[in-house]
């Protein structure tokens, strides 16, 4: 990873203390949400971050913006570490990095008009100029009408609200956006429109994205590279096409086989890997490789030794003791 990365996250750790409250007594337990994650996002690049719920992917998104305090590790944006940064500095930096949330119903204040929601960042940062005109411009940019500024969020559909959320995030002309599952709450028919909008905006404004999603099909086309997470760790990173063609980690393979093929013949013949069991609790993650409890390839070494991310080909890293380097198309129907 080169030094010209826009965002560079190194050894990020986030542990939550949870209280199990029983009456007035409580027991403290530690949730290992993110355990030593490193990645970079280049200028104009989109990194897809994929994992099941509970894998820690949303926690990473929030740590990157310091909406939650990381336990340890560094988050460098343009070379400056956000962790431990003073409030004023952080506030200034927030002009450059923004977030779009998953739930378009919860991410807009029901009591603010769309116009005041979008102009709120302008007010906070005391941006000079006509805020009304800027709001109209932003609304048009995301495909809504300037007349909508005086409306309230409850009058809009989910897709429209997500566009409003995007307009708000873009108001300060940021360079970098965290997209926290921006389409998973939307109907499938609307998802494509929002994804296309995000792609167009990226081309027009030169944005970089950290695109968080829980399945690979959504991020495949928009991402340059994809990182797959399992229980707080990145298990595989690769360029998007490479990851789909040659998934080296059994978990990636399982995720890929969950995506149906449009061609019924291929669909019937292809090799499918179904995971059994549940994700273990992040309070007591398994020793060694965290995926071993559900892995078909698990051996003794997996429990004893934790695999580290190793490069297996150009830009392709995987953390597995038994990585598979045959392309999916050549893998057998039964393994």
């Amino acid at each position: 990873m080169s030094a010209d990365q826009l965002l560079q996250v190194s050894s990020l750790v986030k542990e939550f203390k949870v209280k199990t409250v029983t009456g007035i007594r409580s027991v403290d337990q530690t949730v290992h949400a993110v355990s030593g994650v490193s990645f970079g996002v280049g200028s104009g690049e989109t990194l897809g971050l994929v994992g099941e719920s509970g894998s820690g992917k949303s926690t990473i998104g929030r740590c990157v913006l310091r909406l939650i305090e990381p336990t340890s590790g560094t988050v460098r944006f343009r070379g400056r570490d956000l962790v431990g940064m003073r409030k004023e500095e952080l506030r200034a930096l927030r002009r450059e990095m923004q977030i779009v949330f998953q739930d378009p119903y919860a991410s807009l204040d029901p009591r603010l008009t769309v116009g005041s929601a979008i102009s709120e960042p302008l007010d906070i940062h005391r941006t000079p100029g006509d805020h009304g005109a800027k709001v109209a411009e932003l609304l048009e940019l995301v495909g809504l009408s300037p007349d909508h500024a005086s409306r309230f969020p409850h009058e809009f559909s989910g897709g429209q609200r997500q566009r409003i959320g995007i307009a708000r995030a873009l108001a300060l002309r940021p360079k970098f956006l965290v997209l926290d599952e921006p389409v998973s709450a939307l109907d499938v028919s609307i998802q494509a429109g929002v994804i296309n909008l995000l792609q167009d905006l990226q081309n027009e404004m030169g944005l970089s994205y950290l695109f968080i999603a829980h399945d690979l099909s959504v991020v495949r086309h928009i991402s340059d590279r994809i990182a797959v997470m399992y229980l707080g760790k990145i298990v595989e990173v690769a360029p998007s096409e490479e990851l789909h063609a040659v998934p080296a980690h059994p978990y990636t393979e399982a995720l890929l086989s969950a995506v149906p093929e449009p061609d019924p013949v291929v669909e019937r013949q292809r090799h499918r890997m179904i995971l059994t069991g549940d994700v273990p609790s992040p309070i007591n993650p398994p020793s060694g490789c965290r995926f071993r409890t559900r892995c078909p390839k698990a051996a003794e070494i997996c429990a004893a030794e934790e695999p580290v991310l190793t490069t297996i080909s150009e830009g392709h890293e995987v953390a597995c003791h038994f990585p598979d380097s045959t392309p999916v198309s050549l893998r057998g129907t039964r393994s």
Partner: protein
Amino acid sequence: MAESELSSLDASVGLTAESLSPGRLAYRRFLTHKAAVVSVFVLALLVLWVLLSPWTARYGVNEQVFDISKGPNQNLPPADFAWFGTDIIGRDVYSRVLYGVRVSLIIGLASAVFSLALGSLIGAVAGLKGGLFDDIVMRVTDVFLAFPFLVALLVVRNMFGAVGWITVIVGQPSSIRFMVFLFAVFGWMGVARVLRAQVLSLKEREFIEAARALGASNARIIIRHLLPNSIGPMLVSLSLGVVGAIVSEATLSLFGYGPDPGTGATSLGLLVAGSKSAVRAGYWWLALYPFAALLVITLCVSFIGDGLRDAFDPKHGGGR
């Protein structure tokens, strides 16, 4: 762009000609609660009547209906010259009820407003920041709310009354200012707990996180997002606070810890307290009219509070 065609289709769907703010939607729902709407009218009428007491009252607060030299004027049943009868020293009960309601409304409103201001601020900060401040607020309110209300009220009343600088600022325990202060000191706790719960649930909503990501300060988040979204619970707390203070004043008066009747002023509480012995002697008008005034106020405010709760309850939709 293909994308903008798609979105303009998307954008025109389902918009009504008129834009309805959440506040207006709540107002419309409130209008469907008949008892609450009637209560608003009744209460407005009563408040107007009381505000206009220079014209609507028939006698002064300590004026006798006629001089004792013209015949006995004490404890007379309702008559032309005194619609609600006269009291033990020949004063007009109707006029005194008007003055009493005026004082009680002032106490109720003032304490409720102070409680609301103090309580919503403390509750919002406790809910938003959590940590030690939250713990302290919760423990303090726990301890106070665990005591029987009147006991806590009386003990604290005496304690404050013994502290010199407090009595310099808010007057002696029997003054109206002191009572407002006392009720506000108790009233904020209920409000703070309600607001804290509200903020804790709002905090989970992403728009608070969004504001933080935009760089909003805690103060801005509280003023611009948390408090406007807590209008419903705040209004309900306000209505409960008004009734609570009026009833507390009456209760204190009943046991002789209310305003000082010697100063000539009166309150609903003093009128009710005065009726305690009159009731046993059979002078029903001395109890009936102050009670009726008190009940009109408490019932109306309760119904209004109920209507407000329904109007702002998210279960009734509109928000989504």
